[in-house]
C-alpha cells in the first residue's frame, strides 16, 4: 500500500459482530494476516446493535472512516439482525452521501468467522480508500451553528 501523506494517520472504527466478524478478525490475527494499525475494532453482539448514532458519533469525534462487519445475510447468529442492520446502514450511508460526505468513508462488509483472509483484505482496502480520501473534515464541520 502506498501511503503518500505519511503525516496523516486516519482514525478508523470497525464495528464487528461477536459471532462472525469479530471471530473473522481473530482468525486474521492468528493467521498473521496484517492490516494497518489505524483500524480499531469495537465488539458488538450483532450488527443490528450498531446504532447509526454510534457511527455519526465516531465521525463527529474525528473518525475518518467507519466500517461495520457482520455475518453474511442469512447466517446471522440471531437469524435476522443483519437484515435490519443492512437496511439501516444503507439508508444512513445514503443520507451521508446526500449531504456530501464522501461515500468511501463508510462501508459494510459481511465477514464470516472462517474468513480471516477476507477480513484482512477488507481492512486493507478500506484503509487504502481512507488514505486516498484524506482527513475527514466535512462531518466535523457540519454544525448547526457557525
Amino acid at each position, binding site marked *: 500500500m502506498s501511503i503518500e501523506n505519511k503525516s496523516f494517520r486516519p*482514525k478508523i*472504527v470497525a464495528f464487528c459482530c*461477536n*459471532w*462472525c466478524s*469479530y*471471530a473473522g*478478525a*481473530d482468525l*486474521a*490475527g*492468528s493467521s*498473521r*494476516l*496484517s*492490516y494497518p*494499525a489505524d483500524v*480499531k*475494532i*469495537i*465488539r*458488538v*453482539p*450483532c450488527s*443490528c*446493535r*450498531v*446504532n*447509526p*448514532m*454510534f457511527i455519526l*458519533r*465516531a465521525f463527529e*469525534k*474525528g*473518525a475518518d472512516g467507519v466500517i461495520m462487519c457482520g*455475518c453474511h445475510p*442469512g*447466517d*446471522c*447468529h*440471531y*437469524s*435476522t*439482525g443483519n437484515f*435490519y442492520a443492512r437496511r*439501516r446502514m444503507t439508508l444512513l450511508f445514503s443520507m451521508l452521501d446526500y449531504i456530501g460526505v464522501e461515500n468511501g468513508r463508510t462501508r459494510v462488509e459481511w465477514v*464470516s*468467522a*472462517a*474468513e480471516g483472509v477476507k477480513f*484482512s483484505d477488507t481492512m486493507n482496502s478500506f484503509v487504502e480508500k481512507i488514505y486516498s480520501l484524506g482527513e475527514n473534515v466535512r462531518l466535523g464541520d457540519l454544525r448547526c451553528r457557525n
Partner: protein
Amino acid sequence: MQRIGVFVCHCGSNIAATVDVSKVAEMALMEPGVVHAEDYQYMCSEAGQAKIADAIHEKKLTGIVVCSCSPRMHEATFRKAAERAGLNPYMVEIANIREHCSWIHKDMEEATKKAVILMRAAVAKVNLNTPLQPGESRVTKRALIIGGGIAGIQTALDIADAGYEVDIVEKTPSIGGRMSQLDKTFPTLDCSACILTPKMVEASAHEKIKIYTYSEVENVSGFVGDFTVDIRKKARSVDMDKCTGCGVCQEKCPSKKAPSEFNRGLNNRSAIYTPFAQAIPNVPVIDREACIKFKTGKCGICSKVCQAGAIDYEQKDEIITEKYGAIVVATGFDTINLDKYDEYAYSQSKDVITSLELERVMNAAGPTHGHLERLSDGKAPKEMVFIQCVGSRCSDDRGKPYCSKICCMYTAKHAMLIRDKYPDVNVTVFYIDVRTPGKNFDEFYRRAVEQYGVNYIKGQVGKVIPQPNGKLLVQGSDLLDNRQILKEADMVVLATAIEPNPDVRKIATMLTASIDTNNFLTEAHAKLRPVESPTAGIFLSGVCQGPKDIPETVAQAGAAAVKAIGLLAKDKLMTNPCTAHSDELLCNGCSTCENVCPYGAITYEDKEVNDHGIREVRRLAVVNSALCQGCGACTVACPSGAMDLQGFSNRQIIAEVDAICR
C-alpha cells in the same frame, strides 16, 4: 467512580515481542478510574489470575481490564477469576491486543500505540459497567440428532446409553446414510453393511431412541437447553404400525421406473419401496411422483396385496413439535455435481462413473449384483482408470478448494479389490498426490502398489474421449517420466469431490449455526472446540463439519455425544445477563421494538408509572430476559432510546467510540 485495575499480558512473546507491555500498563495509570496497572508474563496462568485476585482485594477494585488475547479465548477465564475474588464477573472487560494488534502489526511503536488505544476503550467501557446477574433457564433432557447416518447413529447411541432420550430425524426412508451404500471399508476391508447394520438395529431397538425417518426439521426456535423443533413427518402412505415388512407390495408394484436413489440412479426401483434390504425401519414408502395410483387414480395393487392393510393413500404430512435441550447436526455429504467437468465425459458415457457409483457396482445388492461390468454393455472391463481429485483442490469456481480427504484411501481400496477379484484387469490410478496419513493407511496404499500391482501415475488426466468402439481414450500425463499418455480404458472411475449435504445451509440458518463458504459448519474453535458450533447447544458430528472418514466420523460422533451429555446432565443453565431492558420512563409503547425481536421476547403491558410526580398508566415494553438473547436489534429500532442492552449499552459503546477517536 470505579476503581479499575488494568492487567497487561505478555503472552510469552506473542504480545510482548511487538507491544511494549510495560508502556501500556504505564499509560493505563493515566486513565480515569484506573488505580492499578501491571504487566505479567501469562495473565491466564494460575499466577497471573492470582495477581488479579490480589489486586482486587488490596486495591478494592471495582472493575478489571485485561489486555490480552481475544475475549473469545479467555474472557470466561478472567471473569471466573474475578468472581472467585468476589467481584461481579461482568465488571471485567478484555482489550484484545493479541489477535487484533500484536499478531498483525510488525512495528513496535505503532502496535504499542494501538494497544494503548484498545486499552483506553476497554477502560472507558468498564467505567460504565454495572454488575449483572445471570438468570437461570431449564434444560430439556432430550437431544435431537439431525441425520441418521453413521455419525447420527453413533451420537444417538452414545447419548442414549448415558440415559437420555434421543430423537433422530432422517430425511430418507431409512437410517444408514452413506455408509450403507458402501461395499467395503478401508483399511481393513470389512464389509460396510456387516459393521453398520448391527448399529442400526441397536439404535432402532434402544428404548431411549426414537427414529423419525422420511422426516425433516422444519423450524427451530428457542435456545440452548430449551429448543422447540417442528419436525415434518412426510406422508409415507404406509401405516408403520400395521406393515410387517413382507415386501410383497414392492414385488407387485407395476411402476418400476423410478431411479433408485440408493443405487445412485444406476438402476430402477418400484414406486413403493424400501431403499435397501436391511432398511430400518423396514417399512416401505410410496414415492407419490412415481406411483400410478397417485398419478392417475387407478391401480391400488399394493393396497390389494397387502395382507396387513397397511397401505394408506390418504396419509398426510404430519408436524410434530418437540422440545430438546441439545441438537446435534449430522447431515453428512454428497458428491458434487459433475456438469462443470465435461472433459471427463461423465455425462457422455455410462462407463465413466463416480467412486460412490462403483461402490454400488461392487456391492452384491447393487445394480450388477456385485459383478464388475461396464454399465453400457455389461462386458467385463480389462482396463480400468481411476482419476483422483475430480473437483477437489480447485481454486476455480468449478470445484472445491479443499481436499476431500477420503478419495486416496477408497481408490486404493477399489484398486486392490478389483485386482484381487479380477486379476486380469489392469488398474491405473492417475494421482496428483497420494495422501495417506492415518493408522495403517500408507501400508494399505503400498499393498495396492506392491502386492496387487496397481499402476500409479503421477499426473492429472486432461480429458476422457469416448471412442466409436465403445472404449474410453484417456489422455493424461506422466509428470515423472515427462511423457503424455494416451490410454484406452474400458471404465473410468472419478474420485469425485464430496460436499456437505446441500440441505445443511437451510438447517444452519434454522439453528443460527455458523457455516463457511464451502457449506461446512463452523466449529467454535478449530482446535479446542472442534465438535461444538459457536451457537450454544448445537453440536457437530461427521462430515457436516469437514471431510472425514468413518473412524474419524465415529470418533467425532462420540465427542459430540459427550458434549451433548455434558449439557443434558445439567439441571439449570445460567443465562446470559446481557439482555435488553427498557427504561419505563422513556418508553413510548410504540411497538417498534417488538417488530424486530427474533425471539418474541418483548411484550407490552399497561403499567402505572411515576414520571417525576405524574402518575399515569402507560403502555410499556417489557423484555422477558429468559427469551432475550441480547442481539440488540430492539435498541436501535427504539426511537426514544428507552431500550438498551446490558453489557453493551449505548453509553458504553459511545465511550469506546470516543476513546478510539480521542
